[in-house]
């Protein structure tokens, strides 16, 4: 079995790579749907292979298999094989990536139908899938890093897919650069890992890590640096602003990259490094703070967003914050679980949004939608399922995963629980606000003729909604008679922190109270947006101070522009115009011109005047005589 796994594991990333090459190189020859079909098929193949691997791994009885393809870098004691690690964590991620990826690919066939560069789109999507698979399958940090940067690059490409629009291009660049800021931390972390453990391979590092003392400064430093990378990639404070802007890309891109897969890479990476993080309590605390702050902060911003995709984007940031919270609490498998369910329902939300946008002829402003429930029943139903899931209504998947995190937070500190719950309630509110505004009431934009999307788009929606609804059953906690299957499954790859278990009664109490609050919130939203049909303020209307601040996303983008971009430009100008042009260049040229001027002076001495020559000669002789007489 192990031999079989080793021999076919490479196929998983190879399929999308092949798809990328085919659709990329032959992009001008492929007719309308061909590229999409090829790409989707290959990703599906990849999914099937991954499934096969999953079952093989289960039946082999091994926890992990390392598949080495070739030696990538081997310089002295730095030995980095190009190898894949097939273990329970990576197989889970592979399944998510290929599974959700395949659905989104299929969906895209319909969504991107009219675009003239559809082949390029699928090529880039396939490249992304390939990179993402490298990321999750890599057996060491460096291979992970390849995928890490690769997905960043594909994200750059896809955000700026419609490159006519400078704003989109700007958003793409912003995403890439912010990711790179994180990547610098990540790569430094990797390097320190190497110097500490003399290896970057997961298995070797983790086997050595046990010998280390918890809280050692080196480990703290390493984990913080890795965290910087994760913060960049997973859009946490302070590097989150790229994600809402990244909605410039086509909606399937948002679904795949900026909801389901890429942005969760940071969570994956930290979960992967769980052993190291367990040794660094300081870092864990930082993560709790960051995660919680992001979760609430982004949720608050989400309250006042009117662009359907922006709402979802902030919701993604917020959910990622929950995952970070979970990570910080040491509940790595809970984070992965939330990651999984989030992948389902957030992909579904985005695809649903895509369907809506598609139907509305490109309109994204929720103030102009409304009443779509009748016109787009499938979309409505699936969207509803996803909304319920994200809000944490049982028995939808989000309930299980979020509840797990909340419980863990309570175990750690009740205050954390309250804050986290508050965030969840806000999430619930803006999600229902979105739902009500879009699907209820009357249609507000007369020019649009909404219609249900074609089947190629709705079928993935349906599949995903099924997953969103039942995804939670992957990991039913013991409280509900489950066995925490996923948690157990991941146990071999992730070492979660052992914490004191809550009593079931406390847990049930917490769940009931939170459910009550959720119900209240949904009601509130219903009253506001359906009953009273309140419309969010138009851009021109004046708002209360707080409302304005929130609507403008706390002016964080502006602050960044003011504090980073502008000074950078100034610095660049200063360096060039002042230091280069006014100091260094003149300094060098000055030597030249000064010499030249002096030369002209000396030249003028030679005035052709005989008396002067004679005097000069006598003068020289006199000076020399005096010199030798004195010396």
């Amino acid at each position: 079995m192990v031999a079989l796994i080793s021999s076919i594991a490479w196929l998983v990333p190879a399929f999308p790579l092949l798809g990328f090459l085919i659709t990329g190189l032959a992009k001008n020859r492929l007719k309308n749907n061909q590229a999409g079909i090829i790409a989707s098929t290959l990703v599906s193949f990849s999914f099937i292979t991954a499934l096969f691997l999953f079952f093989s791994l289960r039946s082999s009885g091994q926890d992990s298999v390392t598949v080495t393809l070739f030696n990538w870098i081997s310089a002295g004691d730095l030995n980095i094989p190009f190898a894949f690690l097939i273990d329970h964590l990576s197989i889970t991620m592979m399944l998510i990536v290929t599974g959700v990826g395949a659905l989104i690919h299929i969906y895209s066939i319909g969504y991107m139908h009219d675009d003239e560069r559809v082949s390029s789109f699928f090529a880039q999507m396939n490249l992304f899938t390939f990179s993402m698979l490298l990321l999750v399958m890599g057996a060491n940090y460096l291979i992970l890093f390849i995928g890490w940067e690769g997905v960043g690059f594909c994200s750059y490409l896809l955000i700026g897919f419609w490159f006519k629009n400078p704003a989109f291009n700007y958003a793409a660049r912003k995403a890439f650069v912010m990711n790179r800021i994180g990547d610098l931390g990540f790569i430094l972390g990797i390097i320190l890992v190497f110097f500490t453990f003399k290896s970057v391979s997961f298995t070797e590092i983790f086997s050595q890590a046990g010998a280390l003392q918890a809280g050692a400064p080196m480990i703290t430093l390493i984990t913080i640096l890795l965290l910087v990378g994760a913060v960049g990639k997973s859009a946490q404070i302070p590097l989150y602003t790229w994600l809402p802007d990244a909605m410039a890309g086509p909606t399937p891109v948002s679904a795949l990259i900026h909801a389901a897969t890429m942005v969760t890479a940071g969570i994956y990476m930290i979960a992967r490094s769980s052993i190291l993080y367990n040794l660094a309590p300081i870092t864990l605390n930082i993560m709790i703070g960051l995660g919680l702050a992001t979760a609430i902060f982004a949720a608050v911003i989400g309250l006042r967003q009117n662009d359907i995709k922006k709402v979802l984007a902030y919701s993604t940031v917020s959910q990622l914050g929950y995952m970070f919270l979970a990570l910080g609490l040491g509940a790595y498998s809970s984070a992965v679980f939330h990651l999984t369910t989030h992948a389902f329902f957030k992909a579904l939300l985005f695809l649903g949004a895509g369907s809506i946008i598609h139907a509305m002829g490109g309109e994204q402003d929720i103030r102009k939608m409304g009443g779509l429930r009748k016109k787009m029943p499938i979309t409505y139903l699936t969207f509803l399922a996803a909304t319920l899931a994200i809000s944490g209504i049982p028995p939808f998947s989000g309930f299980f995963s979020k509840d797990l995190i909340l419980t863990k937070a309570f175990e750690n500190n009740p205050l954390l629980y309250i804050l986290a719950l508050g965030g969840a309630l806000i999430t619930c509110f803006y999600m229902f606000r979105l739902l009500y505004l879009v699907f209820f009431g009357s249609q507000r934009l007369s020019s649009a003729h909404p219609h249900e999307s074609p089947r190629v788009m709705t079928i993935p929606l349906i599949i995903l909604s099924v997953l969103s609804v039942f995804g939670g059953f992957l990991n039913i906690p013991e409280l509900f008679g489950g066995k925490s299957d996923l948690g157990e499954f991941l146990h071999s790859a992730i070492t979660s922190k052992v914490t004191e278990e809550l009593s079931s009664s406390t847990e049930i109490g917490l769940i009931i109270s939170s459910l009550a609050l959720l119900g209240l919130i949904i009601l509130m939203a219903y009253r506001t947006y359906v009953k009273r049909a309140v419309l969010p303020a138009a851009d021109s209307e004046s708002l209360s101070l707080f409302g304005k601040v929130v609507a403008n996303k706390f002016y964080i983008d502006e602050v960044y522009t003011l504090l980073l971009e502008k000074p950078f430009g100034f610095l660049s100008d200063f360096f060039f115009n002042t230091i280069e042009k006014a100091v260094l260049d003149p300094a060098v040229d000055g030597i030249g011109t000064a010499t030249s001027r002096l030369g002209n002076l000396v030249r003028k001495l030679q005035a052709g005047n005989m008396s002067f020559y004679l005097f000069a000669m006598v003068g020289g002789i006199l000076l020399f005589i005096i010199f030798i007489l004195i010396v």
Partner: protein
Amino acid sequence: MKDISSAIQLIPLENYVFLSVALFSIGMMGVLFRRNTIAILMCLELMFNSVNLLLTAFSAYHSDPAGQVFVFFIMIVAAAEVAVGLSIIVMMKRNVDSVDINLLNRLKW
């Protein structure tokens, strides 16, 4: 002949040296001073002759004929130089009708 030798000894060597130095300086001053090229040439002759005098004096004090032979050669060279110098002046005079040294300033910078 003894008295001649003692007569020579009567005048200290320094006197001759001082005399030559004075003559040399005067000649040099003349070269700097004059504007007429022919006069400058004459001053040059003064300088040469001060050297001659000095050499002769040293020669006499050292009782070494070589110094006087050298003077002889200096005279030869001086004669040749004067010939050349004067012919250059003649040529110049022909071209610009002047013997002014200040006219010699076309070659400069």
